[in-house]
């Protein structure tokens, strides 16, 4: 099976790579571009560790074919900070202890950013709903929710 070209923007940079037709976007990011910040926890859409933003919307990259991203703009955790400045959700996660092992963190950060971009003042329930597709086994979610609330209240 022949590889196919994939031209897309990742974290603002144009990338041109060859991918297998059956390769997932997650695999293209991790194995081809070596952007290993995006994690694989389940490979079937249940844990959200592989969450990235594709054309402005979050997606589980384990359920997206790399080929589907042709022409797309993709943001991964590596692209969250801009010009050496951490994104507020990154700062808040650090400050409020919203991570322990950190394996789920990249996915949560992107879900949180996606939520806050469209809803800068979410209720607790809205926050919980927005991150329900991200599993965390370490924190019990309490500090994650609080960190997101803190960003909304500009307390970072």
């Amino acid at each position, binding site marked *: *099976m022949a590889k*196919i070209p994939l031209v897309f923007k990742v974290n603002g940079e144009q990338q041109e790579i060859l991918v*297998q*037709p*059956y*390769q*997932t976007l997650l695999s293209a990011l991790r194995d081809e571009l070596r952007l290993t910040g995006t994690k694989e926890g389940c*490979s*079937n*859409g*249940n844990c*959200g560790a592989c*969450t990235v933003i594709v054309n402005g*919307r*979050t*997606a*589980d990259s*384990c*359920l*997206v*074919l790399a*080929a*589907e991203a*042709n022409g797309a703009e993709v943001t991964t955790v590596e692209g969250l900070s801009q010009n050496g400045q951490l994104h507020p959700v990154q700062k808040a996660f650090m400050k409020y202890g919203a991570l322990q092992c950190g394996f789920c963190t990249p996915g949560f950060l992107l*879900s949180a950013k*996606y*939520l806050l971009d469209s809803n800068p003042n979410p209720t607790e329930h809205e926050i919980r*709903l*927005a991150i*329900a*597709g*991200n599993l965390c086994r370490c924190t019990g979610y309490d500090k994650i929710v609080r960190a997101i609330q803190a960003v909304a209240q500009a307390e970072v």
Partner: protein
Amino acid sequence: MRLFEFAAPKSLEEAYKILSRADADVRALAGGTDLIDQVHQGRRKPSIVMDIKGIPEMKRLAFDREGLHIGAGASCTDIYNFPPVKKNYISIAESAALVGSVQIQNRAGIGGNICNAAPSADTAPSLIVHNARVVIAGPKGQRVLPIEQFFLGPGQNAMAKDEILLGIVVPPPPASSASHYLRFIPREEMDIAVAGVASMVVIDPKSKVCKTARIALASVAPTPVRAKDAEAVLEGHVINEALIREAGEKAINAAKPITDVRGSIEYRKELVKVLTRRTLTKCLETLGNR
């Protein structure tokens, strides 16, 4: 991951050409939230995966005199954010908002949900109570089918090998009607329905008599099913608490569930009863009749 080729047609003609290839086993890819894992697990073994999202017709979302048009490639997020859906098709909006997580909804659509034909598909009962029609297309032309005839069994739908779903048309809801969908899952999110019920009632504003009632169930039979006995209890009557109870009991008649990791036969029947009552009660509340 099983090996396959990838195609991304930009027009229906192009898609039809691919579908006509005799040597290929083509599967349409919408949001991929069912398909990719199924291929991964070896449960489906297509030789070509055809992404339909690049075909303009597939992304259609419109509301006109004919009703609501949902392209087979529209995502749940697009659908429940579309104001006419929020306003006129509450049950559909509710069920689209239940599919998976935010990440899933950003890609998964109602088209994929019904093509996948899982007994648990959350949007199916809502489409049934809203009398939706599916538009099927292929190299040999288009055809329209009532949604109820679309589901043949778990994972099986009424489309031929060289056909794809173009979209869904949902007629405008009757005046003075309301619809709701509720499912039961052990968690609050990210779960597959143990049982799901959509109800729609049309109430005469003056007499308060129920002119039409439509009730459909998910996850309790090989396909989504109508609970016609329950509907009959309500139609022609002013709905009251007792009738709602009776409808709940009668809804069980349509349920032919199995026992599996998600629940037992008996429990599922109990849930059908409860969810039928609750959706009906919600419909009446929406209509301000309680």
